């Protein structure tokens, strides 16, 4: 899952540019990787790829702002749906 998320972020926000690295814990906001519409692109991607529907009250950096937070959030949502 981490690889899929990383690939999406790399292709979609960093356009595969070399020299822009980030760890699984790095904040996508603080690293300026994601912008305001980027969040909406991320939400669409989570829905399309993991069938995760982000509710309005879940639209928080705590859920979406790093690879590890995203993994945790997706797993939590998937369990709840199961």
């Amino acid at each position, binding site marked *: 899952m981490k690889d899929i998320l990383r690939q999406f972020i790399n*292709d*979609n926000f*960093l*356009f*595969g*540019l070399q020299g822009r690295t980030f760890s699984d814990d790095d904040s996508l*906001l603080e690293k*300026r990787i994601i*912008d*305001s*519409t*980027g*969040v*909406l*692109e991320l939400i669409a991607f989570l829905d399309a790829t993991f069938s995760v529907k982000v509710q*309005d*009250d879940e*639209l*928080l*950096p705590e859920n979406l702002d790093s690879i590890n937070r995203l993994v945790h959030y997706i797993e939590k949502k998937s369990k709840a749906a199961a």
Partner: protein
Amino acid sequence: MIERIRHRGPDERAVYVKERVGLAHARLSIIDLASGQQPMHNESGTISIVFNGEIFNFPELRQELIRKGCRFRTQSDTEVILRLYETKGEECVHDLNGQWAFAIWDKNEQKLFLSRDRLGIAPLFYTQAEGAFIFGSEIKAIFADSRAARRVDTAGLNEIFTFWVNLPPRTFFENIRELPPGHSLTLKDGEVRITSYWRLDYPPAPQQQRAVDERECAERLLELLVDATRLRLRADVPVGAYLSGGLDSSVVAAIVRRYTDTRLKTFSVTFEEAEFDESRHQREVAGALGTEHREVPCSYGNIGRVFPRVVWHAEKPFLRTAPAPLFFLSRLVRESGYKVVLTGEGSDEIFGGYDLFKEAKIRRFWGVRPESQMRPLLLKRLYPYLPKLQAQSPAYLQAFFHVDTRDMSSRLFSHLPRWELTSKLKMFLSPEVLHRVADSDLYGEVEAQLPEDYDRWDGFSRAQYLEAKYLLPGYLLSSQADRVAMAHSVEARYPFLDHRVVEFANALPPRLKMKVLREKYILKRAATGLVPESIRNRAKQPYRSPDGKSFFAGGAGEYAEAALSPERIGRHGIFQPAAVRKLVEKVRRGHAIGIKDNMAFVGVLSTQLVVDQFIDHFGEVQ
């Protein structure tokens, strides 16, 4: 040279060459159709002029000169400049109310004198090459002279990918200079001297708190606007008007209908997509004013297909497709038998209509209490027409629009978000280009150009200054106005940019321009009873057009694919081929929903096309 800009004046052409001076002119006949030919000379042949534009107060100036003993041979405004120069020399520009770029050869003085209007409506470029001084209304005329080298100025590219525009006199091309608005240039004995004869000015901040009578201000403003519009109807051909569906163009059209006996034809562009289309409001105004209204529909495909031609006319990269629909609009004007239109351009700069002014106000308000959770919610009020922004949670709004306390003390505070966002597009620049611009201090360059009293102005006036000094002439009046209008030999005229209106507006306290978050307050008050209430009270809807979608939804992708191919990108060396490929894919799939990606796409594509058209294949472009 003149052949290259024939679109600016298809009615007549003439060239004057004597000794070491050559002047050429392409005429768009609007005033004194019979005898206003150029280049024009005085009787003794010692003073010669070529002139693009209009001097709207020329009848008054003419009468004054006749009273002083001047004799005129024509009814033209060109001769008025000539006689005024004979009388007053370079100081003549202070008397002119209009939009102009002119060149005067003064044989006795052996001096060339160039001048450009106060706000930068008419373009004027020049270069020095191989001992020659070459100038023209468009860069393509200069490039027609083989002595002028055609090369990209990396610093100019860096400016456009920061500010949207160049900081005059720099342009996108190396060694090609733009005469800044409100400036004159003299060339004598091989020396170029550039002087400012007018600039935007605002009262010191403490004075802005003074008491003023709002009613009187609104009345005076209306008087000035009526006179500015009346003057801009002066022509020996019919004058039409653009209608955007917003307040500004409606005010201009309403003044024509209410205060003159002119029958008015109005012109609008409409869009397929509701997000951009304003036809309902345009028709409402046209119906209320009783104008003869014409529309041109603009589809995604139209924009994509015409884009290369628009780039050819703009002569520099731009970041949105907005000039393209206006290209169709000017074509409609021309096909309707018109060659002059009035527009509402300039009002947003002088009355504080843009969201940028509101955003700066909110950011200042928020910056005082950066921890506030509620203040960022005001941003949602700011952009009601941006559904993507409305979808954001307060937590993310807080994160994205966070006001840095360091920004609060910046002299360029109001424009930092726009410039920072635009600067992100530089991620696509090649390492070589990035290396070349690495040491540049663009904000420092802007600061170095600021007038001495800038720091004494309030924040609102500073924001207005930056907007009217840079984006207005560098993009709105050029790529989005003069160039796309002149592409079809149409002259646009701007009542709001009459310098008397600008000076009056600049002297008004900011609270009369933006009351709390209500933009253009004093103009709305002045327009009471003039335009339909629904238009007067309508929230500002900025003019926008579809970006990335235009290139793939309508079958225009072929040339875009070629221009953005890794081979072409690599050959030009400006951008990174692999990154651009991913951007193109994202746009093609319809996944580029944000402003940044769309700006990047349009910016990269237009840059590639400028290089194709002006450097690689200049002789081949028709």
